[in-house]
């Protein structure tokens, strides 16, 4: 008797499974490293934001052409130079069923302003928010803010009730390795719901059938799996184990393009890779030099720049898939000036001379902190750089580590010499300048200026940029800051990334310069 029931149940389950399989389109997505956290305000990092975007939504978002579009806000108007009102989309519900209200929007903005929030660059000039009525919020700014909307595309909305219930009113303190309920669970308004999360193994998102918007693709499940090894990741794509690889290794692109089962979509990414130096400690932490800090001397930094051949990095390490640069952000960003972007010619003789003048004729030894699963060929770039610096007698000890450890370490300023890549989701120079070049201070000022570069003239230009609304003047201020920074050799820029995405031939996607895959536009045939 009971055996029959079990058998029937099994048949039914099988029928259901097959029925679902007929139109179930799962997108199996892989890249080298894992999502750092599920908390939408804890880590401002490219992949993390890309995945967050599927679960949590901002007030305004970017469309296929990267233009700003309404999202959880349907309209907005400036009521004064220091206040903008947003009308919220009616009828939106969180994944747990509670409605999205003005209280949640106010809460989310305040949460992103909290000290543990990693999203301070997007909160630049924002002082707070207040509820006007159930469907309206007003965001207060310090004077006019020309990039307010661009910033808000990255400020995602959470449920206040859910956060209170799970004791996650404040963002997770990622760099001090805090774990919270929100770092492993999620409750947003977006098109996908977090179903399961196993750090470093697998993250599964399923379609939110109650989502307010219109699905343009046919994906109803996303399975994200990090695969660190380049070869393994690629083999998984070629064998059909994954459908989409965000970061195929550059050396394999020619082969992938020849394979009929796979296609490659490529474009320039709005992301710049560079090296930074500890310029604030009196004694360098991880170096052979005692009692002083060589990187405080502009000649030493310049010698490093002269020793690094960015064009060789392009041809040998990136296989041509990069745009060498001398500035800190890509041409897609407002404020970019081609005149400043002339790559320094490598000159070892001069580099050795500069080091000798600075008091290091025998060179010195320093540790380079480098991620090994964040940027395209990051560790290989660092290795090649170590060899180039050896030519001018600088001995580099390479300390390569996975992204989760890496970001926690460098965000504590615990580094002497580091690699970082910076994308500009606002597509405006202020975001890069303020985070990377501005003296470390309140709010977003210098929040990723991890070597604490500091020049009062650069600070003055950046501070003026925060409230300047005239495009021509903005461009002039950007130019001024960049030119001084370049003369200082505050950082050593390497290149802007070119991002080929590789996928199975039956997958079609919309390629975006911010390196974000948007699953609701993906079609799997």
């Amino acid at each position, binding site marked *: 008797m009971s055996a029959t029931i079990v058998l029937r149940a099994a048949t039914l389950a099988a029928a259901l499974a097959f029925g679902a399989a007929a139109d179930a389109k799962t997108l199996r997505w892989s890249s080298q490293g894992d999502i750092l956290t599920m908390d939408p305000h804890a880590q401002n990092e490219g992949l993390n934001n890309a995945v967050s975007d599927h679960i949590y939504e901002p007030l305004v978002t970017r469309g296929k052409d990267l233009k700003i579009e309404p999202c959880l806000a349907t309209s907005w108007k400036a009521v004064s130079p220091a206040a903008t009102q947003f009308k919220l989309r009616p009828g939106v519900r969180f994944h747990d069923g509670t409605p999205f209200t003005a209280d949640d929007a106010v809460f989310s903005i305040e949460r992103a302003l909290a000290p543990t929030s990693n999203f301070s660059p997007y909160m630049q000039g924002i002082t707070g928010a207040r509820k006007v009525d159930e469907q309206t919020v007003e965001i207060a700014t310090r004077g006019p803010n020309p990039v307010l909307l661009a910033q808000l595309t990255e400020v995602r909305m959470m449920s206040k009730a859910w956060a209170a219930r799970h004791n996650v009113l404040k963002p997770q303190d990622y760099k001090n390795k805090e774990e919270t309920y929100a770092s492993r669970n999620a409750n947003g308004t977006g098109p996908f719901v977090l179903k399961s999360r196993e750090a470093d193994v697998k993250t599964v998102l399923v379609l939110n059938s109650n989502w307010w918007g219109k699905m343009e693709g046919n994906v109803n499940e996303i399975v994200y799996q990090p695969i660190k*090894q*380049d*070869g393994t990741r*690629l*083999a998984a794509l070629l064998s059909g184990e994954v459908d989409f690889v965000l970061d195929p*290794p550059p*050396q*394999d692109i*020619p*082969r992938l393009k020849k394979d009929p089962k796979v296609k490659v979509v490529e474009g320039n990414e709005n992301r710049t890779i560079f090296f930074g130096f500890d310029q604030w400690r009196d004694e360098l932490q991880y170096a052979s030099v005692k009692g002083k800090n060589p990187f405080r001397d502009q000649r030493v930094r310049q010698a490093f720049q002269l020793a690094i*051949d960015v064009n*060789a*990095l392009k*041809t*040998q*390490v990136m296989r041509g898939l990069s745009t060498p640069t001398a500035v800190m952000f890509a041409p897609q960003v407002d404020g970019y000036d081609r005149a400043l972007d002339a790559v320094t010619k490598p000159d070892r003789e001069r580099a050795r001379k500069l080091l000798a003048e600075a008091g290091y004729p025998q060179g010195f030894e320093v540790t380079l902190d480098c991620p090994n699963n964040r940027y395209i060929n990051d560790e*290989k770039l660092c*290795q*090649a750089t*170590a*060899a*180039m*610096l*050896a*030519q001018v*007698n600088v*001995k*580099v*000890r*390479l300390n390569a580590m996975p992204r989760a450890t890496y970001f926690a370490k460098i965000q504590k300023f615990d580094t002497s010499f580091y690699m970082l890549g910076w994308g500009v989701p606002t597509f405006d120079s202020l975001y890069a300048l303020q985070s990377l070049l501005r003296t470390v201070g309140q709010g977003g000022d210098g929040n990723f200026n991890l070597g604490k570069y500091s020049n009062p003239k650069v600070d003055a230009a950046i501070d003026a940029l925060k409230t300047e609304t005239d495009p021509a003047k903005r461009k002039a201020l950007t130019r001024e800051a960049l030119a001084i920074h370049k003369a200082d050799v505050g950082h050593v820029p390497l290149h802007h990334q070119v991002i080929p995405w590789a996928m199975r031939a039956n997958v079609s996607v919309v390629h975006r310069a911010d390196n974000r895959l948007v699953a609701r536009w993906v079609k799997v045939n």
Partner: protein
Amino acid sequence: MAGEQAGGNAGGALHRFFDSDIFHSFKGSPVVVIAAVLTVACILAATFAPWVAPHNPFDLRTLNLLDAFTPPSWTERGNPAYLLGTDDQGRDVLSTIIYGSRMSLVVGLLATILAMIVGVTLGLVSGYAGGRIDAFIMRVADIQLSFPAILIALLIDGVARAVLPKGSHDEVVVYVLILAIAASGWVGYARTVRGSTLVERNKEYVQAARVIGRHPVAIMFSHVLPNVLGPVLVLATLQVGAAIITESSLSFLGVGVPPTQPSLGTLIRVGNDFLFSGEWWITVFPGFALVLLVLAINVLGDWLRDALNPKLR
């Protein structure tokens, strides 16, 4: 025979060796001779790496990134300076193999010696003392045998990573690795030695030693040990190959020796990234070298086992 009493005479000993059964069986098998030549060549090359290798791949000053990915010299784009081509950093593959096999051999040999010391001691104690001590040591060995060696090595390495202070790991990683591999390999020796000891312990010479009042430790090491050493040496030869493979597997998985002092396993891992893009030589040659080295050692071990086994003569 006349030669037997002239044991101290070196020429006589040499003559005796060339005249022995073992040497005849060695000469009679060309495969074994080739294996021995290969092993000796590998050991010599590894020992004298700085003089043998055409380049020093770890002197960063001599590297040129623009030389990276040069194919082997006999191919179209090859460069005669780099016989087996260069890797992604512009390092000569032949030189990295020579330096890499150095690391592999050092780790393999030291791990085997350490495992042998621990295993033989525990086996002697276990077999000679018997009773509870024997039961305890053998149960520990049984438990350990139920885990694959690589798993135990991974566990020890993982714990060491967590326990050791940050930054010091790179310096001690080689020792940790030797310890980890040795810890997973001692069981074989312990069991073999215990078996032989159980047989030896009841023989007259042991009983005689006991009667005249020698200390048990002295009996174990000066009377029993020499008589159980034969199988141990065979086992050790075979274990060197296994230890090298374990080390390479760990390095291939990225938990072995750091890339700054690579072993063959590290080299294979690094080259693996370029297998799809057609730069096969970066991974194939170190892989080939590893197979050759381990195969040669194993052939020698097998031969030694047969040659020392009176039943197979």
